[in-house]
């Protein structure tokens, strides 16, 4: 089932008189359960594409439809609500809320969704266990290693039961062991729970794990390789 449809997507930045096409006419569809890596050199438009896909940035032209909803048609507050219910984010610098514990960080989005305390606590413990952080739920981010923080970020991204997770360079600040660990967790969640992951990355280890690799250059897709077309 197609969950993301991108058509003729363009993002242009104006720098004085010069126009820079960060994304330049991208057409793309993402199916449910994909484990996709978007790769390309710096400045190729990976992050810009992910930002627009996550409704964090507005395209100059073109359309993004997520589950039949056109993001461009949503008002600002509706867009925030849409993100909360449909999209999980994993950032390069973890970006956990520093004054909340691991458990509270994971619970936070569910609280915004208005879920019951019982449901929140059950899902939080389940997710923290899934990312291997059982026993560290009461630690604040500053007391966790980079790898542990990123695993909390993954748990937070999944807490809202999103349609897909966008991960912008999720392993950029991690050592190889933590990277391996994190990728295994995400791959496991992808396989078991059919969660769609879309990464932007430079990391070859992420590319190796991905089932589909989309390469961007100068804001355009130059290759789209299905490594495991029968993945389900």
């Amino acid at each position, binding site marked *: 089932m197609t969950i993301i449809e991108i058509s003729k997507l363009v993002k242009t930045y104006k720098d004085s008189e010069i126009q820079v096409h960060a994304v330049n006419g991208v057409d793309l569809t993402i199916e449910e359960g994909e484990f996709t890596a978007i790769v390309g050199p710096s400045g190729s438009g990976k992050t810009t594409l992910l930002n627009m896909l996550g409704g964090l940035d507005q395209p100059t032209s073109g359309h993004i439809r997520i589950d039949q909803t056109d993001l461009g048609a949503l008002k600002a507050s509706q867009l925030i609500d849409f993100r909360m219910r449909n999209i999980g984010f994993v950032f390069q610098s973890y*970006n956990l809320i520093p004054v909340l514990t691991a458990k509270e960080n994971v619970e936070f989005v569910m609280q*915004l969704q208005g879920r019951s305390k019982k449901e929140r606590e059950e899902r939080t413990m389940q997710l923290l266990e899934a990312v291997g952080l059982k026993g560290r739920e009461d630690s604040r981010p500053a007391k966790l290693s980079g790898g542990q923080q990123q695993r909390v970020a993954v748990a*937070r991204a999944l807490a809202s039961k999103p349609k897909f997770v966008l991960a912008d360079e999720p392993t950029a600040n991690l050592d190889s062991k933590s990277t391996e660990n994190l990728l295994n967790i995400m791959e496991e969640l992808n396989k078991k729970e059919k969660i769609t992951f879309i990464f932007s990355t430079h990391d070859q280890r992420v590319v190796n794990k991905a089932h589909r690799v989309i390469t961007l250059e100068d804001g355009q897709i130059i290759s789209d390789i299905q490594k495991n077309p029968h993945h389900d």
Partner: protein
Amino acid sequence: MSTNIKIAWRNLWRNKRRTLITVASIFFGVLLSAYMTSMQEGSYEKMVDMVVKYYSGYMQVHHENYWESKSINDTFEDTPELRQSILDHLEVDFVIPRLESFALASSEELTKGVLVMGIEPESENRLTSLKGNVNQGSYLQANDQGLLVGEGLANYLHLGVNDTLVMISQGYHGISAAGKYPIRGIIKHASPQLNKMIVYMTLPNSQDFFSTGNRLTSLVVNITDTNLLNRSLKQLRADLKPPYSIMSWQEMSPEMVQQIESDRAGGIIMKAVLYIVIGFGILGTIMMMIAERRREFGVMIAIGMQRIKLGAILFYETLFIGMIGALSGLLVSIPILMIQAQNPIPLTGQAAQVMDDYGFEPYMFFSLTPSVFWHQALTVFIITMVIAIYPIISANRMKLINALHA
């Protein structure tokens, strides 16, 4: 505790030193402002007390021309019907009759202009507690033929208890008024000005001296609750027709009201400067807190927090800083001012002389009226509310993508 409040509270303590410095600035501002206000209001209360409790009362009934002329000719008959018509008003506690005029008083060698006040000793004591101020001799009896003389006047005239004071004046409609009276007691009047010029005698004695018959210059009206003054005044004005007129203490002492108002305005300006400095201190802290956490705010909005909720968190943070500072300032200022109210600061030297010359006791008095405290809390609350607009606007205008890359 809601998550928003929890986040706001914990955020305050991310940079403890900065929060404590900001809280301390509010604390000292509230303390200083409460101290200053208490001292100002204490002085005003004392001034009003001096006039109301020791002299004029809250209201007075006069002949309609008396206040302009201050003449013994503009007096009115003291009738039981008149007194009863005033006492019929629920807020009126009691009334005190007086006959006041001026005379020239002499001892063996010296002469001085004096204020002669004819009183009913017992009812006058209800208002002014005059009996307690007698420091030599005794208080007047109901039909006493003697006098009570202010200590300053007695000293000036070199007179003591049982000495004779001779007085000469003009009585009702030009009749000569002259008499010699034994001094029953010397009083230390709470008003230094009156202390130098007051002579009390019984009402019948004064009516006889001024040949007024059963006439009064004023009926002092005391009320049960000072907050009801304006209402009582309005009702009495409606009921008492000419030739009577009724005046409040503010109307009888407009200079003092004006002096208090102008002094209060000066205090307000000083406090405004103080609070503006504090306000900018809080604003600076809030701006720093926002600038440092732009990316965090971006993440919160990205994962689904509505901007209004983010604004609420920042609002709580601002409110907490204001509340902690204001409450701690109030908690410390209350006991300090309670001690000060019991122990007014005595003035010495030239400052004491100036106060004495103006007819006030040479002390810095402190007030414990609730407004001294809640005005500070309200001011900090208003400042906090105004400053809280900034983070709310800031959260609303924040460009998400820029915030995420901050």
